[in-house]
């Protein structure tokens, strides 16, 4: 069953179309990465799912429930972690969690126990009575995630949860999110950190100018769109690559150096090695490098 099913979602801001018939499906239990440059439509899509934005075309279903007609059901299933801190300034960290639990219908006793559990998990127990404005940036970020999880949602939607977070906290959050996903929570994550998506997400969707431009498993995306770069260390140096070898698209890593590189092409690689050998050139070393998701992402979203 799909946890999230978006079909032909369109959204306009005045006359400007922000989303162009976006469709995507996130199976239950998936860890889905939603990537795109600033202004691509990531947050707008998330807001449409969570009830924070109206939309003009298409529909969104969460576990089969429509986010407009069955909004109470879908909102009970979703936990939302926004990008910006949006806490009630009159409340303490603990009150923020207990009240949010209450809005989701949790009785006070359960709400308090759940809040205590999350405050402990996110190392905020010692600060639970503090006015949220007195918490550090990292603490506020953890409190945002705790708030999104207070009602034990089936789907957790995170809008750039690690933006501006130091490396240590980021790694902790990654571990936590992985664990949560392993426990069965479907995760829908937008991020600017491609490494984050590459390490965490099973599937990835890329949005650009309000249009979906890629949607696949992370591994397939890298396989299909990425490539291997092979660097060869030769037994002599060159000012220019000899003509027979040049035909294979080879380039010198550094002029006057003894290293050449080329993109892996399974059909021609053995011909290249034969040609190098026929030139009487010896190979003394070989290195392969895979294109990262970041390079693929940059290639796909190059200014269009």
């Amino acid at each position, binding site marked *: 069953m799909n946890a999230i099913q978006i079909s032909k979602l369109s959204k306009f801001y005045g006359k400007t179309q922000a989303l162009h018939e976006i469709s995507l499906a996130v199976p239950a239990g998936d860890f889905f990465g939603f990537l795109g440059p600033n202004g691509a439509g990531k947050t707008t899509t998330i807001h449409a799912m969570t009830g924070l934005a109206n939309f003009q075309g298409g529909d969104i279903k969460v576990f089969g429930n429509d986010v407009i007609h069955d909004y*109470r059901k879908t909102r009970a299933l979703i936990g939302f972690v926004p990008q910006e801190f949006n806490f009630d300034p009159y409340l303490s960290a603990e009150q923020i969690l207990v009240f949010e639990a209450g809005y989701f219908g949790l009785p006070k006793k359960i709400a308090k126990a759940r809040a205590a559990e999350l405050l402990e998990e996110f190392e905020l127990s010692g600060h639970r009575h503090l006015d949220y404005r007195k918490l550090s940036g990292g603490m506020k970020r953890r409190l945002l995630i705790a708030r999104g999880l207070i009602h034990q949602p089936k789907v957790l939607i995170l809008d750039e949860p690690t933006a501006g977070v130091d490396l240590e906290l980021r790694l902790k959050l990654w571990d936590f999110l992985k664990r949560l996903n392993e426990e069965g929570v479907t995760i829908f994550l937008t991020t600017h950190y491609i490494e984050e998506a590459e390490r965490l997400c099973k599937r990835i969707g890329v949005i650009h100018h309000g249009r979906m431009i890629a949607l696949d498993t992370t591994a397939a995306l890298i396989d299909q769109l990425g490539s291997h770069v092979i660097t060869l260390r030769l037994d002599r140096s060159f000012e220019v690559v000899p003509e027979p070898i040049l035909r294979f698209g080879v380039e010198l890593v550094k002029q006057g150096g003894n290293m050449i590189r080329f993109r892996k092409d399974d059909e021609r690689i053995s011909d290249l090695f034969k040609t190098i050998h026929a030139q009487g050139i010896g190979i003394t070393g070989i290195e392969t490098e895979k294109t990262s998701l970041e390079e693929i992402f940059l290639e796909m979203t190059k200014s269009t």
Partner: protein
Amino acid sequence: MTNLRSDLIGFKSLVEREIIRFTSVFKQTIFPPIISSFLFISVFGLFLGKGIENIQGVSYLTFLVPGLMMMYLIEGSYLNTSTSLFVARWAGHIQEILVTPLSYFEMVAAMLIGGLARSVAEAFGIYLVSLLFTSFPIVHPWAVFYFAILVSLSFSSIGMIIGLLAEEWEHLSILTTFVITPLVYFGGVFHSIDMIPPSLQFLMYLNPTFYMMNGMRYGMLGILDANLLLSALVVFFFFISLFSVTVYMFKTGYKLKK
């Protein structure tokens, strides 16, 4: 857990949050109207009122009390919801509520009850202060409840509408300064309709707050400046129309959703 039970918990939580919001700053919310009323009753009621004849058999000081209670019911309820909603939009924590399974009706109703709680606390405080100067039996408690609750909910609705329309802080006070305060003052807080020239009395009949003051005075003192049924109907339809507009604005996400 049944759906009804969890709905009630959600609704109750939001009501509680709204009440904590104004009680946590009670020196700014509850005390000022009580102190102002003490001054009004002392200066106008006790000192100046001695020179004013009884109105329908009631001393001017006593006549003043229901008017002041109604005035602060109106202002307190408006200020509570307009501030609460505007701050929630401004700080963004309205999203905390919008992403929950609360229905739009429940969201609006809970915020209105917050406004009701604050304004009733203020009005009750004013009543207690008035006991330092005068005492009188409450003649028709049902009418006090009816008018206090519907008027408070009506102005709480206006507060929410303005809380949604406002783009800046000063927009909240514009309505108070230019609309609510003049309407309330001319609606009969300090005077009976018989105290103004007959040629201008029609202006009071056009003023909805006149019927609110009238209903409150009937409930507390048993005196009337206008027909009771008409007053009750004006207040009822005033509330229904404003409440409907507020729920509609929430449902459509006006200034709430992008």
